[in-house]
């Protein structure tokens, strides 16, 4: 047959593929939707089951050997293996594979003992927490890992004499943690001056550092120590081999791992420029696993060599208004009803479908449904309602001018809308938001800026008007002081709105004074209601994590809390061809 005929046939094949995936796609979406609803009903287990990985967890015999190449769109940050000051997901993920903590995290956010022999014992007054370590723990060089290492590690985060060592968790622990002592080589005792309810969930997964290597280094010198760029010993499932900046990070099996040596010889993180290229490389087999762009997901489902997986992301996408009363944007966003009007003018269902290709759901609360404190009855909730939005703005005194844009008291409702550049989804979002706000007479000027600048804006500069950003949650603890509390304003937190609400502050603090979930839950429910009413930073979407995993990879059991936060199953991952 001629070349044209062959091309025609190929084309027909392609058309048929397109038709087929739309059917499969519908089924997949129903699956996710069902799972989400199950979650709302409080059934975390249902989610794990309904939306679990398409790789079955227990398969045929594991094959030893070979390597797994995972794609990542960002490189490690500088000093990436500093387990006590990691601020980005790529570095956190690298730490997950190299430095185990006392506890780890399961796919749905439960604590599991890693270096610890079991979950800790908590005294009745909640001021003493005791951990017993597993016996015979070793570092990758064979030296024993003891409670001394643990005490040393935690000491770096709260002791006054280690103040020169910078850790982002110091402000959390200072004032609460009084001492961390190794009472014997297998036991660590933490003593608190005040009850810190979030300690076990939030702080017990920190990678333990080797005292024998770092103990002699001054805290100040530790900040830039080479060990954190190229760790010589590790305690996790892999050893660090090398980091070719901008290209790849290579790990190898740690023979002395407490859970036993991994099946894989090597694990490589390959850095690709964006999530679209990542999808492309999944298809060619250059990558074995990775998180592709939503726009490529449907196409990936048609590829026979790849399993796809979508599960909920325990975070959200939202936008912050700058509520600093001394700055200009306050004139625009200071009033609650104006913020409500802006939120109601957004057709989030349509946005989820068009911009996220269906891989997101409109959000209704500041806590995602993956956490036990999620208030499914949060009120008020908001529907897409342009007319109501316009009425609220009219009532607030914002009158439409001849150019269609509202103004009040000589101030035009015009502002700059930022998000991080390079993220196509976010850049599209701000354009859609611009358009939808234009329809109610509000002028938003979309301008993507570098991620670093965005974070600095939130933490320090505060000259922005409104910015769109996403939050990824590392653990299930519902404490969000960094986001909504006064303590979260400034360099340690993410409260770029500079929102100050005394009631919310009090509730946040109270909720940390007990470990009893039945007492904490109603407090968080209240917080969610207040924030849903005040809308200092309205939550737009809960989105999905999307995965493409080559069929030769088994036991790669990523889940909502097992994307980068922890991967306790990593040692069981194997590749069927052993290569």
């Amino acid at each position, binding site marked *: 047959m001629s070349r044209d005929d062959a091309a025609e046939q190929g*084309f027909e094949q392609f058309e048929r593929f397109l038709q087929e995936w739309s059917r499969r796609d519908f089924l997949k979406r129903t699956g996710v939707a069902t799972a989400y609803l199950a979650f709302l009903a409080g059934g975390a287990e249902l989610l794990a089951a309904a939306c679990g990985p398409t790789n079955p967890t227990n398969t045929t015999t594991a094959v030893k050997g070979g390597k797994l190449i995972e794609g990542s769109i960002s490189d490690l940050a*500088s000093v990436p293996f500093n387990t006590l000051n990691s601020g980005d997901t790529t570095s956190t993920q690298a730490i997950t594979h190299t430095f185990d903590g006392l506890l780890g995290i399961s796919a749905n956010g439960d604590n599991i003992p890693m270096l610890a022999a079991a979950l800790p014992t908590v005294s009745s007054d909640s001021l003493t927490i005791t951990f017993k370590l597993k016996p015979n723990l070793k570092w990758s060089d064979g030296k024993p890992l003891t409670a001394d290492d643990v005490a040393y590690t935690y000491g770096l985060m709260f002791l006054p004499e280690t103040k020169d060592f910078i850790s982002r968790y110091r402000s959390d622990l200072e004032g609460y943690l009084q001492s961390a002592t190794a009472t014997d080589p297998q036991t660590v005792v933490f003593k608190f001056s005040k009850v810190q309810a979030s300690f076990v969930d939030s702080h017990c997964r920190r990678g333990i550092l080797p005292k024998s290597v770092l103990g002699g280094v001054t805290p100040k010198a530790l900040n830039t120590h080479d060990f954190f760029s190229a760790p010589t010993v590790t305690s996790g499932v892999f050893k660090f081999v090398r980091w070719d*900046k901008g290209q*790849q990070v290579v790990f190898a099996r740690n023979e002395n791992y407490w859970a036993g040596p991994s099946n894989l010889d090597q694990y490589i993180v390959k850095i690709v420029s964006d999530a679209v290229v990542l999808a492309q490389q999944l298809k060619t087999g250059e990558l074995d696993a990775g998180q592709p762009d939503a726009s490529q997901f449907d196409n990936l489902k048609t590829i026979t060599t790849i399993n796809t997986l979508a599960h909920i992301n325990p975070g959200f996408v939202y936008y912050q208004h700058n509520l600093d009363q001394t700055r200009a944007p306050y004139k625009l966003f200071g009033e609650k009803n104006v913020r409500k009007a802006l939120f109601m003018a957004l057709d989030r269902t349509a946005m989820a479908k068009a911009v996220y290709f269906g891989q997101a759901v409109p959000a209704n609360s500041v806590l995602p449904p993956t956490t036990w404190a999620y208030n499914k009855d949060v009120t008020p909730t908001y529907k897409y309602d342009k007319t109501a939005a316009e009425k609220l703005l009219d009532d607030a005194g914002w009158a439409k001018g001849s150019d269609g844009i509202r103004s009040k008291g000589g101030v035009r409702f015009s502002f700059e809308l930022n998000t991080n550049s*390079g993220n196509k989804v976010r850049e599209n979002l701000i354009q859609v938001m611009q358009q939808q706000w234009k329809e109610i007479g509000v002028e938003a000027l979309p301008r993507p800026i570098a991620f670093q600048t965005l974070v*600095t804006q939130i933490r320090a500069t505060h000259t922005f008007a409104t910015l769109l950003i996403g939050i990824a949650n590392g653990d299930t603890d519902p404490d969000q002081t960094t986001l909504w509390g006064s303590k979260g304003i400034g360099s340690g937190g993410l409260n770029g709105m500079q929102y100050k609400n005394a009631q919310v502050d009090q509730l946040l603090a109270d909720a940390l004074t007990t470990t009893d979930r039945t007492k904490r839950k109603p407090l968080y429910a209240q917080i969610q209601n207040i924030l849903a009413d005040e809308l200092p930073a309205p939550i737009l979407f809960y989105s999905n994590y999307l995965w493409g995993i080559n069929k030769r990879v088994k036991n790669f059991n990523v889940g909502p809390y097992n994307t980068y936060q922890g991967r306790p199953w990593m040692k069981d991952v194997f590749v069927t061809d052993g290569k």
Partner: protein
Amino acid sequence: MLKYLVSRVIATIPVIIGVTVFTFIVMHLAAGSYVPGLDLNPNLKPEDEAMIKHYLGLDRPLYEQYLTWMAGVVHGDFGRSMIDGSLVSRHIGDRLPATLELTVTAILMGVLISIPLGVTGALRRGSKIDHALTALSVGGFAIPGFWLGLMLILIFSVQLQAWGMPFLPSGGVMTPGTGGGDPLDRLVHLIMPATVLSFVYLSIWSRFTRSSMLEVLSQDYVRTARAKGMSGRRVVYLHALRNAVIPLVTLVGLELPSLVSGGLVVEVVFSWPGIGKLLYERALQTDYSTVLGITTFAALLVVLGNLLADFLYALLDPRIRYA
């Protein structure tokens, strides 16, 4: 000749100074108030800031800072990144080979293909082939390089794969994890970006070769050779071709400055890990110092390249040699 060389060197010095002054001024305008390390540690106190500034010499008078910058450049130190403090010179060292691999291949392809194309056009002047080749070269020049790259990727990488056929890789220099040893693998990765990059050279040089060839063919000595009874082919290959190609060498020489920078768009489209792509990525992160460091390096290469070209001309052109 010595006088000529010395005068050329003297003329080059202000340009070098000018380039470094320019990049220095831009650096200060863009990032004068930037404090390295602030991104790593947002808790930086004013005293610490002052200490870092002093340590880096940022509190010294401008001319002193310029001299330090200049001295660094002379030693091959083009500054440090604002984002992560890495040495620009190390980045250049890491990425330059990949860029050169791409641009040199593209130029070679351009030369090797334009000569036969141009010669064919000249020999078969006015024929359909000639018209087709002219159209191709005019069209080729009008195609946006990034678009051509996109289309090639979509056809030869994405679409072929969707049809289950063997396909070309869509980016990168090698298959990951192979260490780049397999020449066939590297070739397969190189072919599309090099083709796109050579396209523009092709369109210009084939036209130029054609007109150069035509001019040579109409020269007296060619007609003489023909009259003497030499076969047409010998005439072409021995005399005309050699003389027609020499001006092409000049044109190719004009392109040498673009060895470093010319591949930028192609590098970005094909994720080719070269200097252009690095500059682009760093520009998106507003890492001014890396961008400026690379720019200075490239500009200096151009200046030195021109100087070298002047020397070579001096060697080749007897008029200058014996002056």
